[in-house]
């Protein structure tokens, strides 16, 4: 174990907790946890437990496909349930990963180096999982490919005005784009792994993916140009993807949905829950891979400030919704607003408000921001609150539309619950495999950070 791992926090170098960290030590700290250190029993237990969740998810999907969506609690009024709420929630978490990585790259935030890699990976896994839900809720999932324009014997085209088609292109483009963004960031590190690998398999595996990278000045220049340009594209892309998710609702005619604020409001929600998820993952990776030296309390402090800002904007968005419902004067909108605060789902709505608006206000205090445990607990609260927001957007509006005769509630079934928690295990499963395969922190950026902070 290198010396930098045991060094105390140093206020002179906020982003690296060491007086001295040579390039070799930094490289070894990150690379050895993949190449040399065995996984350990904790990792295997976590993999086993999350494997059970994966199994449960597969069983639930099998039952859904053979029995139909009647196994869920959806009815002819509340036609969307957990599936669409989970879709919005997961894609929001993915968006947070892109935003944390791309925005901080464009604004040249140095502290990004320690957290961007697993934020990007989080995006890939979260977006993959979110892509499952629109297919699952189709009813006839075997025909999902009808969303693509292809020469077919029916001589049909996709309905380009349909939100489902927008979702299809948004998810596919976003997923592939994020994969490329992650891979480009990985390239120099894969070359490091190739050069450090002790087995032939490792050398061939990492060597093939490193594409022969040799760190020439010319390569680095192209790399930087490409990476920054990708980041500059990623920000409008993620905003557009999540705006499309907002449009899925806003393009309808239902009270509480048909609001122009929805696209930006959804994007802020994505930033909010995505940063919260990154904070949780950062704490877990820091603990699991013993990266206390390169992930410091200053990182949590910085992320907590963004969470606080997002929370304030979220609160303003909620207030705008309430205000517009009252000010516009539509009876259905006003009646829905009363239902939000006093109706059948009111306890959940109050819970959502306390998790998303009240709880993060604790982050105004520097002592709370600098406590990793507090930041993680608040982040967990935010993620629960944001999921409640997504499910309540669906439940409240669909249970309380224009026609009083259609007012009906949603009662989740066992399969709803399994498909809610199962994918969380699926995500953990993917993530555990990822940290054993590639360096969780970009080594080349960390070396650069060492030089800029004058610790190397």
């Amino acid at each position, binding site marked *: 174990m290198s010396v930098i791992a045991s060094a105390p926090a140093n206020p002179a170098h906020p982003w690296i907790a060491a007086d001295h960290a040579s390039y070799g030590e930094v*490289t070894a700290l990150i690379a050895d946890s993949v190449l040399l250190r065995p996984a350990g029993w904790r990792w295997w237990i976590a993999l086993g437990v999350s494997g059970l969740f994966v199994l449960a998810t597969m069983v639930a999907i099998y039952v859904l496909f053979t029995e139909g969506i009647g196994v869920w609690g959806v009815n002819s009024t509340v036609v969307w349930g957990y599936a669409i709420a989970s879709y919005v929630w997961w894609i929001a978490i993915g968006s947070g990963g892109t935003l944390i990585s791309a925005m901080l790259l464009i604004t040249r935030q140095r502290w990004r180096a320690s957290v961007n890699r697993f934020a990007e990976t989080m995006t890939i896994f979260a977006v993959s999982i979110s892509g499952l839900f629109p297919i699952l809720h189709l009813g006839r999932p075997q025909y999902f490919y009808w969303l693509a324009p292809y020469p077919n014997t029916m001589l049909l085209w996709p309905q*380009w005005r349909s939100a489902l088609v927008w979702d299809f292109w*948004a998810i596919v483009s976003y997923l592939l784009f994020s994969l490329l963004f992650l891979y480009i960031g990985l390239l120099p590190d894969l070359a490091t792994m190739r050069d450090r690998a002790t087995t032939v398999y490792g050398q061939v595996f990492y060597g093939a993916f490193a594409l022969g990278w040799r*760190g020439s000045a010319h390569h680095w220049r192209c790399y930087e140009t490409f990476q920054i340009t990708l980041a500059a594209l990623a920000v409008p892309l993620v905003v557009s993807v999540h705006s499309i998710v907002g449009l899925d609702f806003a393009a309808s005619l239902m009270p509480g949905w048909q609001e122009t604020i929805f696209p930006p409001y959804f994007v802020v929600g994505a930033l909010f829950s995505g940063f919260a998820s990154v904070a949780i993952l950062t704490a877990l990776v820091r603990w699991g891979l013993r990266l206390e030296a390169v992930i410091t309390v200053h990182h949590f402090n910085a992320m907590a400030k963004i969470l606080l800002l997002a929370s304030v904007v979220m609160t303003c968005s909620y207030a705008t919704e309430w205000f517009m419902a009252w000010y516009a004067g539509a009876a259905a909108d006003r009646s829905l607003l009363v239902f939000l605060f006093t109706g059948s789902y009111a306890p959940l709505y109050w819970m959502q408000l306390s998790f998303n608006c009240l709880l993060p206000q604790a982050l105004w205090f520097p002592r709370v921001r600098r406590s990793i445990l507090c930041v993680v607990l608040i982040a967990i609260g935010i993620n629960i609150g944001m999921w409640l927001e997504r499910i309540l957007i669906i439940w409240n509006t669909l249970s309380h539309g224009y026609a009083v005769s259609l007012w009906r509630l949603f009662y989740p079934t066992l399969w709803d619950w399994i498909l809610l928690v199962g994918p969380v295990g699926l995500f953990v499963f993917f993530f555990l495999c990822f940290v054993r395969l590639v360096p969780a922190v970009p080594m080349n950026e960390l070396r650069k950070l060492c030089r800029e902070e004058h610790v190397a």
Partner: protein
Amino acid sequence: MTKPLIAEFSDADSLISAAVRLKREGHQLLDAFTPFRLPELDSILIVKPSRIRLSMLVGGLAMAAFFYFLQWYSSVIDYPLNTGGRPLNSWPVFLLVPFEVGMLAAALSGFAAFLWTCRLPRLYHPIFDTTDFARATQDRFFLLAAQTGKEERSASLRKLLKHSGAVAVREQGS
């Protein structure tokens, strides 16, 4: 021209000062290999700006235009379907898909341009045979330089590299 020399440095600053010195004395700087990006090297080595961004712009716009055309053709010409009185060419919502697909196409064409300008993938390169070159992706900095002109300057280049703080000076591939 004799065989180029490759000098190994243990930190970035000595590599940069050596490169500046070599350039001043009229030697030919071929390339540098570093474990992270050193922007200072761009002006010293005269690394040309690449056309990656241009190809991204062209690729993205072309794909976006193609997708708009596809939507317009399918819903106005090939399969006109009047639902709810919406115009056949519903351009505001037809912009969503071209935007997404255009971004993806820009990224992919950028990747192709990146590989093209860097001459990658190239799994083997003669420079990999140089002793210790594996450390170029970890913690060492390498400078590839050649002397132009007369034979006697070869010795002077080697000496110059040593004086500039190189840990080792080798011929490429040895």
